[in-house]
C-alpha cells in the first residue's frame, strides 16, 4: 500500500496506437494522467480521450465488470481495464495494449468476429425433442441441477482467456476456452437434450483435445468461469459416455 504522503500526483500511461489507414506497425505513445487511487486503467484512458487526444480508440461501456467490452493487456497481462486499479501499478508507467492473439482493428480495439463465430458454432441454446405448452409453467430444475452448470453460465465473453491461452495463440482453429465452457454450460443443463448435436464439434480436432490443460484460461478469467475445468469435464464425459452419442439425444442427471 502506498500512503498518502508518497502518493504520486500523476502516472504515465504507455498506450499502443495503431491506425489501419496509415500504420504498418503499432507505435507506443506516452500520456501523463492525474493519479487517483480510486481510478481504474479505463478511467485513465477516458481522461486521455476527453482531455488530450480524442482519437484514442478502445471499447467500454458498463464500467462495472459485466459487459465484457474493456479487456486489454495491462503490463502484459489480459485484464478488464474497468477492474484494474491504477494503485496496483504504481509507480508506473502502465503499458496498455490490445488483447493479445487477436487481429487489431485500431489502437486497443481487436477483431472479435472469430470469437463470435465460435460461440455460435457450439449451438448455445436449449435443444429439446419436445416442448410442453407454456401454460404448464416452468421446467423444474433443482438447486443441485442448477449448480451443475451455473458456473459455466457466468461468462461475460471478455476473451481474456483466449488471450492467455497458449494453444489459441498458435492454432486459430481451436474452439477455445469460453466457447467450450459455453457448450458445457448447455450440455450440463438438465433442461437441455442437445449434447449429441454439440459433441461433433467439441470432440473434433479443434475441440477439447486441442487443449493441453495449461490452465492459464482459468487463471485470468475475471468471473471464475473455470473454462479449464469445463474442458476437463467434457473430456471425462467423452470417454465415459461417447457411446451415448449414437443415441439421438443424451440424457442428463435427474
Amino acid at each position: 500500500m502506498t500512503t498518502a504522503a508518497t502518493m504520486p500526483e500523476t502516472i504515465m500511461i504507455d498506450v499502443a496506437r495503431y491506425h489501419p489507414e496509415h500504420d504498418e506497425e503499432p507505435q507506443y505513445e506516452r500520456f501523463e494522467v492525474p493519479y487517483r487511487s480510486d481510478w481504474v486503467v479505463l478511467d485513465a484512458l477516458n481522461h486521455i480521450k476527453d482531455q488530450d487526444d480524442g482519437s484514442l480508440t478502445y471499447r467500454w461501456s458498463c464500467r462495472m465488470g459485466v459487459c465484457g467490452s474493456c479487456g486489454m493487456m495491462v503490463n502484459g497481462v489480459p485484464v478488464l481495464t474497468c477492474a484494474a486499479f491504477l494503485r496496483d501499478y504504481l509507480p508506473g508507467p502502465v503499458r496498455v495494449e490490445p488483447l493479445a492473439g487477436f487481429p487489431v482493428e485500431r489502437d486497443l480495439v481487436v477483431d472479435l468476429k472469430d470469437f463470435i463465430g465460435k460461440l455460435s458454432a457450439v449451438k448455445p441454446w436449449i435443444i429439446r425433442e419436445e416442448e410442453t405448452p407454456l401454460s404448464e409453467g416452468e421446467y423444474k430444475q433443482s438447486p443441485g441441477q442448477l449448480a451443475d452448470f451455473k458456473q459455466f453460465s457466468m461468462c461475460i465473453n471478455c476473451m481474456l482467456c483466449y488471450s492467455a491461452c497458449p494453444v489459441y495463440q498458435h492454432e486459430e482453429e481451436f474452439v477455445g476456452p469460453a466457447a467450450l465452457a459455453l457448450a458445457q454450460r448447455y450440455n450440463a443443463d438438465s433442461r437441455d437434450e442437445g449434447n449429441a448435436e454439440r459433441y461433433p464439434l467439441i470432440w473434433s480436432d479443434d475441440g477439447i483435445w486441442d487443449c493441453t490443460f495449461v490452465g492459464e484460461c482459468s487463471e485470468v478469467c475475471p468471473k471464475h468461469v473455470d473454462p479449464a475445468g469445463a474442458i476437463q469435464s467434457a473430456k471425462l464425459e467423452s470417454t465415459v459416455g461417447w457411446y451415448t452419442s449414437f443415441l439421438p439425444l443424451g440424457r442428463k442427471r435427474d
Partner: protein
Amino acid sequence: MVDTLEHDILIVGGGGAGLRAAIAAAEESPDIDIAMVSKVYPMRSHTVSAEGGAAAVIKSNDSLEDHFRDTISGSDWLADQDVVEAFVREAPDEMVQIERWGCPWSRESDGSVAVRPFGGMSIERTWFAADKTGFHMLHTLFQTSLKYTAIKRYDEWFVTRLLVENGRCQGVVAIELLSGQVRAIRARAVIVCTGGGGRIFQFTTNAAIKTGDGMGMAYMAGVPLKDMEFVQYHPTGLPGTGILITEAARGEGGVLLNNKGERYLQAHDLGEALDVNDERHPQLRAMELGPRDRLSQAFMKEEQKGNVFRDSEGSYVHLDVQHLGEKKIEAKIPFVRELAKNYGGVDPVYEPIKVRPVVHYMMGGIDTDIDAATKLPGLYAAGECACVSLNGANRLGSNSLTELLVFGARAGRNASIWAREHPEFDSAALEQQASAEQERIADQYINNHDGKERIATLRTELQETMEQGCGIYRDEVSMKATTEKLAEIKARFRSGIQLDDHSLSFNTELTSALELEFMIEIAEAVAHSALERKESRGSHQRTDYVERDDEAYLKHSLAVHSEGGPQINYRDVAITKWPPEARVYGRDH
C-alpha cells in the same frame, strides 16, 4: 452514392428488448428477413448490468390484480391501466418462455423458480438469477437468437437517423464503425430498442452507451417523447462511480441508516422499523421496500437535516447487510459483495456500504401505444427508449426487465405483420435522404476543421445543468436556468465541434459527437416537460408545487420537436378501473 441494403424488419438495438423483438418477429413469420443493428455487440448492451430481477405473477398466492395495483400505485396513477392489464397478463408466459430458453433462474428446493420481494410490491414476485438477472437474461436471449437464421446482425453499426418518406418509416442510415462507411438500410418496418438516456445526468448507474440515441432519432423524425420529466433516482448507488447496489440487497433484508445510526425512513411516512431479526422483516411495501422515488426523496430530506455522512466523494448513508451473514450474502447477492469490495472499498459482510441516490432509469420515452406502435406508420419502439405508459411517474423495480420481454415481443409481432402488408419502398427518395445524411456527417464532423467546442466540455456542462435543474427536487427557477443553459449548449454545439479524429475507421470520437447531439435533444425534452408540469407526482417533485394535481395533470406530457425547442402537449391517462387515490406505503389505508 451511399450503399443500400434491404430487409423486411430492422431492429435498432440488441439489448433485451431488441433481441426479444427479433425472436418474436422470426417466430411470427418464418419467411421474414430481420436485421438487428447495434452500436455494440448485443451482449454488451446495458441490459447486462441489471441485477435484481424481473417481476411476473407465478406463485399461487399471488394474483394479476395485485401486480396491477402495485404497478398503478407505484406509477402514482400515471400509468395507462389498459397497458398495465396487458402487461401483467402476458408477463408470466414471457417469463416462462425465457426460462424454457435456458435462463438460469434461482430455484426453490422443489425445482420451481424462486421469487424475492422488491420495492413497492405487495408480495414476493420478482424472479431472479442471483443478482445478475439482466446479465443472464441478455445472454440467454442472445444465445437463443443465434439459432434463428432469419436474423442478420450488424454489430457495431451506429444508426444516425431514421429514413421517413411518404409518411412512413422505411429504414435507417447507419455508420459501419469498422470501415467508417455510411450506409442506408431500407426496411418495411423499424423497431427502435435503443435503451435509456441516463447519461444526460452526471451521476448515473447507466453505462457509457446510454445516450438516448433512439429517443433523439424518433423525436427528430416527428414522434413525440412522452412523460420525459419522470427520471428515476435509485436510492442506492456507490458514491463516486454511481455503480448500482441492487434493491435486492434490501429485498433480502438490508437496512438504510443515517449518520445517527437511525432507520431514518420511518421519519418519512414509510412505516415502522422492525428489528432485523423480527421474522416480519423486511416488510413489503414499507420502509426499505418502499418505492424508489420516496426513498430517494427521504435521502434528500435527511441531507437537509444534516443527518448524512460526508467525505471527499460527497454525502451518503449506510446500507447495512451484515446481519444477513456471509452465507446468505454469497448465495443471494454475491455481485453486491463483489462490487462493494472492488468499487466501494468495503466488504459488506463486515461493514456497511456507503450509498446515495443516483440517476437510474427514464420512465419517459418514445410515445408508443399498447401495440408498441408509434404514431409514425412503420415505426415501433420497445424497452427503456419507449414510453408505453407502463411505469407512469415512477417505475417499480423489476418491472422493466419484464417490460422488455412483453413489449419487445409485441413490437416484433406487430412489425412483422406491418412489413408483410407494406412491401413497397420510395427508393429514390430514400437514397437521396441517405446521401444528404452522409454529406451532413462529412461536413459537420469529418471534414470540419474549424470547430472550437470540445465534446467532453459540452457533455459535462450538460450533465451538470441537468443535475442542478432536474434532480430529485425541482423548482421553477432552477429548471428555467437549465432550459436556458441547454439552449446555450445547443448553440455552441451547432457552432462546431472540435474533433481530433478526422479518420474513418472506428472513429469513436465521431460517435461521441453524434451521441451528444441526441443527448442535447432529449435533455431539452426532459427539462421543458418538467418545467411545464406544475405539480408533484412520483419522481417529479417540485418545491413550488408540492401536491399532486389530478384535476390539471392526470395527463401524459408529449414533447414535440421544433426548431425553437420542445412544444409540450398533453393526453389523458387511460383509467380503466382504478381511479386515483392517495399513495400510501407502510400503513393501511
